[in-house]
C-alpha cells in the first residue's frame, strides 16, 4: 500500500479543497435561509452537494451524509433519462423523488442541476429538502396507513423544472397543486432553486478562474486521495467479522434486519443477508439508501475528517438481497423509512463499525455508544391566526457515551450530526400549542463508566386552537428498544416515546391557575403511540420523550463524584445513584467514599455468583499477563500466552477463552428485569429482560443487552 501522494501541488490542493467545501456550505446556508420547513431550517434534513460530470460525489457539505450517494444516483438517473431525449442544457434544473430510482422517500425532493462552462458539462450541483407535503394519505408525506407506494403521494422519475434558466410554471404548478400546502411546497422548491443557482454560479467562477483542465485534474485527485487515506486507515484496524441485528416495530408486527460486516485488508463488506422480506408498511429502505446508511456510519467513525467525496465509496461494498426491507421492489411503501428501516440500517452499520474500531489501539478512542433513533410527531391544523399549517414537533435526544467521557445531553434530533430545534416561544408563536415543560429527563440516560447523554421530555397541550383539535401523526422510531444502546456493559437509554393523554385534567388546572409538573399528575388516559394518526383535542396532551444515550462500560467504574454531580444536576435520582452506580451518600450531599467502595465490592461479588455458562475454555491456560495483540473492548484484550491466543480480562488478567470462541459464553451471566438497567425501563417489563455478562474473575461488567424474555415454560 503506497502512501497517499499527490501529483498536484499540495498548496493548490488545499486551497481548492477548501473552496469546494465552502461552496457546499453556501448552498446549505441558502437552503436554510430561503427554506421554510422545520426540517430544513432546524433539523438540517437536507443535502447540499457537488458532483462530477458522471455523478460521482465531488464534495458534500456538512449536512445529511446519508443522501450524499443517493443524489449521485439521482444525477445518473437524470443523465440516463435526458441525454437522448429532452437534453441536458446549461441552466436546466431537474426534479426527481422516485424512491425506487434515487431518493429515500417521496418527501425528499431532489433538485439536480448541470453546471456548464462554455457549453462544457463540468459537474452537477444537487440538493434535497424534505418538502412540506407530497399529497399522500397523511399530511407531511409520512403515511403510517400506506400499504403500497401509490398511497404515498407524488412520484417523479425525473422532470425538468427549469429549462435553460426559465422556470417551467406548468411543472411547478402541477406539482405544488398536488399537495396540501402549495405555498409551502413552492417555498421549498424556491429554496432548492436558489441554492442550486448559488452552487452553479460559484462552480463556474471557480472553474473559470483556475481553468477547466486544472480543475478536472485536481478534482480527480481529490477522490483518489480520499480513497487512499481511508484505505490506509483501514489497514490500521485488525481484520475481522462483526455482526449486529435489530428490529423494526410497526403496529403489532416486528421485522428483523441484520448485517454482517467483514473487513479484509482495506475493503469493507456490509452484507444484509438474513433481513426480512419487504413489508406492506412504509418501513422499507431502497438499496441506494441502504448504501447511504453504511456510508454515513463509515464517515462518522473512520472518516469524520476526510473530505466527503466518492473516494469513500471505493472501499465499501453493500449486499442487500432484492425484495427485502433493505432493497424493496414495487409496490413496497417507503414513506416511514427514514425513521424505521433507515434508522435501523444506520444503527446496525454504525454498531458493526464501532465494534470494529474498538479492536484498534489507534481508533478505539472514537468508540461511541450508538443510538437507534428517536420519536417525533407531525402536527397539522388551523393555527391561532386562522391559517392551515403542517409542521413537525421535534425534541433533542442525548447521544451515547464515549470512550473518554459522557455523551452529550440534548445533542440533537438526528443522532450523529448537529441539528437544532426551535425555542418554545417560536413554536407557541406559530402554532396553537403550549408547552407545560421542556427539560432533561431524569434517569433516562444509560448508566456506565461514562453516562449517556440525557434526552428531552416535553409535555404539550393545545392552546388557542380555533378548531379545538390538532391532527397528529406519530412518527420517528417506534418500539421500546428505539433509543440509545449501551456499549461494553454500559446500560441502554430509556426508550423514546410519544404518549397521547386523553381527557386530561389540564383545563381544570388552568382554570385554577396552575399546571401539572409531571405527566403522572396530568390525569386522563395515557396511550403509548406507535406509528399512527390521531387527533389532539382541547383536553388532550401530547408527551414527547426523546432518545437517551447509552452508557459506556461498567457503571460501578464511574467516578462517584461525577455521579454526585449528576444528582445535583437532576439527571440521576439518588435511588438510581445507589442501586445502579453503587454510590452511597453521606447525609444530604457528599459521597461516602468508604461506603461506596464497600457497596461496589459487594455488588461485584454478587455478580460473580451469577450463573456461569463457562464451557468454551478447553484447557486452563494458567495465569499471567499475555502479550497484547490488540484490544477487543474497554475491559478485554486479545493476547498471546503460551501456544495460544486468548481473550483476557484487562482488569484482572482472567483468561476467558481462546480467541476464536465466543467470550460471552465464558462469562458469568446475570438475567434481571429491565428496570435494573434504569427505572424508566419499566415499560419493557414482562416482554424483555436485562442480560449482563461479567468477568468471572473480577466481576467487571463486560456486556449488556435488553433481550426478548424467553417464554416461560408451562
Amino acid at each position, binding site marked *: 500500500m503506497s502512501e497517499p501522494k499527490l501529483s498536484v501541488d499540495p498548496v493548490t490542493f488545499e486551497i481548492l479543497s477548501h473552496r469546494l467545501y465552502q461552496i457546499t456550505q453556501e448552498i446549505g446556508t441558502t437552503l436554510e435561509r430561503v427554506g421554510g420547513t422545520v426540517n430544513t431550517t432546524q433539523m438540517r434534513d437536507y443535502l447540499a452537494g457537488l458532483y462530477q460530470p458522471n455523478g460521482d460525489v465531488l464534495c458534500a457539505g456538512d449536512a445529511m451524509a446519508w443522501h450524499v450517494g443517493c443524489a449521485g444516483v439521482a444525477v445518473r438517473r437524470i443523465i440516463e433519462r435526458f441525454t437522448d431525449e429532452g437534453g441536458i442544457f446549461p441552466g436546466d434544473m431537474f426534479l426527481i423523488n422516485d424512491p425506487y430510482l434515487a431518493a429515500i422517500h417521496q418527501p425528499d425532493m431532489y433538485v439536480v442541476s448541470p453546471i456548464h462552462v462554455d457549453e462544457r458539462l463540468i459537474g452537477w450541483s444537487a440538493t434535497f429538502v424534505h418538502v412540506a407535503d407530497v399529497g399522500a394519505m397523511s399530511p407531511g408525506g409520512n403515511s403510517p396507513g400506506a400499504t403500497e407506494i401509490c398511497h404515498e403521494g407524488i412520484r417523479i422519475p425525473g422532470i425538468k423544472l427549469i429549462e435553460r434558466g426559465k422556470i417551467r410554471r406548468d411543472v411547478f404548478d402541477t406539482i405544488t397543486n398536488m399537495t396540501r400546502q402549495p405555498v409551502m411546497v413552492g417555498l421549498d422548491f424556491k429554496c432548492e432553486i436558489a441554492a442550486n443557482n448559488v452552487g452553479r454560479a460559484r462552480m463556474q467562477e471557480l472553474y473559470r478562474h483556475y481553468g477547466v483542465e486544472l480543475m478536472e485534474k485536481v478534482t480527480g485527485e481529490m477522490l483518489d486521495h480520499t480513497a487512499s487515506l481511508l484505505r490506509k486507515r483501514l489497514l490500521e484496524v485488525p481484520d475481522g467479522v462483526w455482526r449486529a441485528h435489530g428490529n423494526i416495530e410497526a403496529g403489532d408486527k416486528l421485522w428483523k434486519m441484520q448485517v454482517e460486516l467483514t473487513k479484509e485488508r482495506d475493503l469493507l463488506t456490509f452484507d444484509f443477508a438474513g433481513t426480512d422480506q419487504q413489508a406492506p408498511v412504509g418501513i422499507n429502505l431502497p438499496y441506494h439508501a441502504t448504501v447511504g446508511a453504511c456510508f454515513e456510519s463509515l464517515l462518522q467513525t473512520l472518516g469524520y475528517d476526510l473530505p466527503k467525496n466518492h473516494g469513500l465509496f471505493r472501499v465499501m461494498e453493500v449486499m442487500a438481497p432484492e425484495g427485502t426491507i433493505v432493497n424493496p421492489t414495487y409496490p413496497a411503501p417507503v414513506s416511514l423509512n427514514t425513521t424505521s428501516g433507515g434508522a435501523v440500517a444506520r444503527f446496525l452499520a454504525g454498531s458493526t463499525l464501532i465494534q470494529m474500531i474498538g479492536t484498534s489501539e489507534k481508533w478505539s478512542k472514537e468508540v461511541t455508544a450508538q443510538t437507534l433513533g428517536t420519536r417525533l410527531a407531525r402536527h397539522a391544523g388551523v393555527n391561532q391566526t386562522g391559517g392551515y399549517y403542517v409542521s413537525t414537533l421535534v425534541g433533542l435526544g442525548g447521544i451515547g457515551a464515549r470512550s473518554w467521557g459522557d455523551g452529550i445531553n*440534548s445533542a440533537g434530533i438526528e443522532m450523529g450530526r448537529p441539528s437544532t430545534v426551535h425555542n418554545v416561544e417560536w413554536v407557541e408563536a406559530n402554532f396553537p400549542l403550549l408547552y407545560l415543560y421542556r427539560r432533561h429527563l431524569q434517569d433516562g440516560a444509560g448508566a456506565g463508566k461514562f453516562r449517556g447523554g440525557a434526552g428531552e421530555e416535553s409535555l404539550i397541550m393545545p392552546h388557542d386552537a380555533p378548531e379545538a383539535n390538532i391532527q397528529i401523526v406519530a412518527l420517528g422510531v417506534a418500539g421500546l428498544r428505539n433509543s440509545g444502546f449501551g456499549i461494553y456493559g454500559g446500560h441502554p437509554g430509556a426508550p423514546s416515546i410519544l404518549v397521547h393523554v386523553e381527557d386530561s385534567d389540564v383545563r381544570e388546572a388552568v382554570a385554577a391557575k396552575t399546571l401539572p409538573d409531571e405527566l403522572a399528575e396530568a390525569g386522563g388516559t395515557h396511550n403509548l403511540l406507535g406509528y399512527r394518526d390521531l387527533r389532539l383535542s382541547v383536553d388532550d396532551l401530547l408527551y414527547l420523550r426523546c432518545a437517551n444515550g447509552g452508557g459506556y462500560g461498567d457503571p460501578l467504574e464511574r467516578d462517584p463524584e461525577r455521579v454526585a454531580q449528576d444528582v445535583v444536576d437532576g439527571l440521576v435520582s439518588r435511588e438510581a445513584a445507589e442501586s445502579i452506580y453503587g454510590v452511597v451518600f453521606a447525609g444530604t450531599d457528599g459521597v461516602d467514599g468508604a461506603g461506596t467502595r464497600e457497596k461496589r465490592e459487594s455488588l461485584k461479588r454478587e455478580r460473580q455468583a451469577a450463573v456461569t455458562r463457562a464451557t468454551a475454555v478447553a484447557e486452563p491456560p494458567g495465569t499471567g499477563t499475555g502479550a497484547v495483540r490488540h484490544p477487543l473492548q474497554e475491559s478485554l484484550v486479545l493476547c498471546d500466552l503460551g501456544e495460544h491466543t486468548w481473550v483476557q480480562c484487562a482488569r484482572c488478567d482472567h483468561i476467558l477463552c481462546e480467541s476464536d470462541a465466543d467470550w460471552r459464553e465464558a462469562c458469568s451471566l446475570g438475567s434481571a428485569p429491565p428496570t435494573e438497567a434504569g427505572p424508566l425501563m419499566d415499560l419493557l417489563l414482562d416482554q424483555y429482560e436485562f442480560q449482563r455478562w461479567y468477568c468471572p474473575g473480577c466481576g467487571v461488567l463486560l456486556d449488556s443487552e435488553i433481550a426478548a424474555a424467553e417464554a416461560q415454560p408451562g
Partner: protein
Amino acid sequence: MEYNLGVDIGGTFTDCVVVDEAGELTVGKALSTPDNFAMGVLNAVRNAAEHLGMTGEEALLHAAKLFFHGCTVGDNTLLTRSGARTGLITTKGFADSIYMMRGRMTEGLTEAETAHFYALTKPDPLVPRSLIGEVKERVDYKGAVVVELDLDEAAAVVDRLVAEGVTAVAVSLLWSIANDSHERALEELIKSRHPDLFVSLSSEVAPYLGEYERTITTIFNAYIGPTISSYLADLGGSLAAKGLPNAPLIMQAYGGVLDSDACVRRGVGLVESGPAAGVVGGQYFCDKIDEPNILVTDMGGTTFKVGLVRDGRIEKNYSPVILRHAVLATKIWVESIGAGGGSIGWVDEEKGLLKIGPQGAGAKPGPASYGLGGTEPTVSDVDLVLGYLNPDYFLGGRMRLDREAAVRAIQEKVADPLGMSLTEAASGLYRITNAQMADLIRRATVERGHDPRSFVLFVEGGAGPVHCGRYAAELGIKEVVVPMTSSVHGGLGLLASDVVFEYGKAERLVYPPDPKVVNATFAGLLDKARADLEKMGFAGEEIAVIRSLDMRYRFQCHELNAELPQGTAELGMEDFRWLDQAFDELYEQSYGPGSGYREAGKEIITFRLRAVGKIQHPNIKRHARGPADPADARKGKRDAYFEQERDFLPADIYDFDRLVPGMAIQGPCIVESPVTTIVVGPGDAAEMDEYRNIRMHVQA
C-alpha cells in the same frame, strides 16, 4: 486648545489617539496593564501628552472635552470566567433551556471541530444547575397570564440563591417579551429583600423572541455587570482625580458610546466592542475618501477579522455568538478566523497536506524569528523569508528579527517533510494564508449577497498590509486602502463615534400591519430613547432616530432587518406599500434572484429603534499634494518573492515617513513604516493620498 481623546485598550497595547481643534492627530501608546487597566490608560494619555509637549497626563486631561473609551473588561471577565457568582430565575419546567441550547452546540467552532461529531461537547455553563431557581408562573404568546406568579415561592427561591452566595441574578421568564409584569414583580421582590444584588431582566436586556438566546444574553449581562460597574467606577474616579472634566463615554459593540450608567445596565453590549471600534474607524474614512462600500479587514497576531460598510452603513449582527452561545444583542457584524502573523504553518503528515493555523504561537514564544524561543514557522516568519519584512526595521527597528531562525523553522517543519524547497514552502504558506482570508471575505460578502468587487478593501492591523494585495487580487478587488492610522484605528473609531442607544421589541404582525399598532410600538420605544438621550444632555437637532423592522416571508425562519426612512414621522399605508417592495428587493439582494416568496405573505417579527445623540466628529487634517516622484522617499532595494512571477524580484524600499501626499510608487516595491510594512506587487501601483493613507491599485 481643546482636545478629544480616544483611549482603546488592546491585548498588548493601550492606544490614546488625540485630535485637536485643527484636526491634527497625536498618538500615545503604552503597554496594557491587565491587573489594573486604569494604569495603562493613564500611561497612554501621558505618552500622548508628551508628544504634544505637555508634562504629565493631568495637563491633557484638563484640556479634554470628550474622553472616549474602548475597553476589554467585558471580554476578559467572560474569558477568564471571573464574573459574579450568578443565579438564574426562570419559569418552572424550563430551567434546562440554557443547557439544551436548542441543540446549537457547534456555534463558534471551527470547521474541523464541527466535523468531528463524536468529539463534540457543549460549553461549560456560566450558571450551574444548582444556582437556577424555578418559579411557578406562565404567560402565553399573547401576553395573557396562564398561571399567576407565586410570590411566596419566589421569595424562597431568591433567598436560597442568596444563601448559595450569588451576587448577581438573571431573571428570564417565558414570554416576558409579551408581558413583563412577572419579571418586574420579581425585580421588585429581589430589590426589597436583597437590595445589593445585581439584577438583569430579560425583558430589558434582550426583549426579543427566543427563550434560550434571551436567557443566555441576560445571564452574560448579570455575570459581567458587577465587574464592569466597579471597573468603570475605578477608571472614572482615577480620571476625574487627574482632572478630566467630563465622565468617559464607553464604546459599545454595536458602534456607539454610552455613559457609565447605561453601560452597566447593558454590560453585554460591551463584549467585542474592540473590533467594532475598528469598523467605525473605517466608516469614518468612507466619507473622507468618498467610498460608500468598504470591507474593513484587520490582520493581527492571532486572528483575521472582517467587517462591512455598505452604502455608508455598517452591517449589524442581531444574534452574534459569544463563547459558543448565540446571544440577542446587536453587534457590528464581524467575522473572524484564526489567521494572523502568529499562525503556525504545519504539515498534516497522514494526509500529506500543508496547513496553516488555527493554532498560533501567541506573544510568547511567538514566531521563530522573534528569538523568544519559538521554533514553529509562523506567517510572520514566512513574510520575513520571502523578503517582505525588514529584519532590521521591524516596529521601526525596535525589534530585530532572526532570519536564520525563520528559515530553519520553515525548512525543518514544512519544506523537508513535504520534499519542497524553502521558497516553495514559504510561498505555499503565504498563498494558503491569503486564500483563507479571501475565503472569509467571500463568506462575508457573496454569502450575504454582495459582490466583493464592489468594495474597497480597508486594511488594518500590523500584518495585513503585507498580504492585502494578494487577497484583494484573489477576490477581484482593485482598490485597497492602508489608512495612516492603520495600527491605532480603534482609537480613531472611538473619536468618530456618537452616543447611540438601541431599543427593541418583539411583536409579531402579519403584513400589512395596522399602522396604529406600528406607530404605537415605535412611540413606546421613542419615549424611552428621548428620556435616555435627554438625560445625557441631547436635544432637538442633535438627536437622530432610525427605525427598522425585522421582517420575513411568512413560514420562513430567517428575518432580515429593513430600515425605514429616517425620522419619527407617523407611518401610514403608503410607507408599508413602499416597504413591501423594499423588502422584496432587500431579500433578493441577499439571497439571490427568485428566492423571495411573495405569495407566502410577510410578517413583522421585531421592532428596532436606534437613537443617536450626535457628537461633532473630528475633521482630520488634509495635506496638500506634492510631487508625484517618490525618489526622496526611496531608501534602498531588496529581493522579495512575488507570486505573480513565481520568483524573487528586486523591489524598491520606501520610507513611509518620507512619503508625501501625491507621491506615486510602482510595484514591485515595499513601504516600511514604524508600525507596518506594505507590499505592492509587480503590476500594482500605489500613492499616498491627502490624509497620508496609502491607496493601492491592484491588478486583479
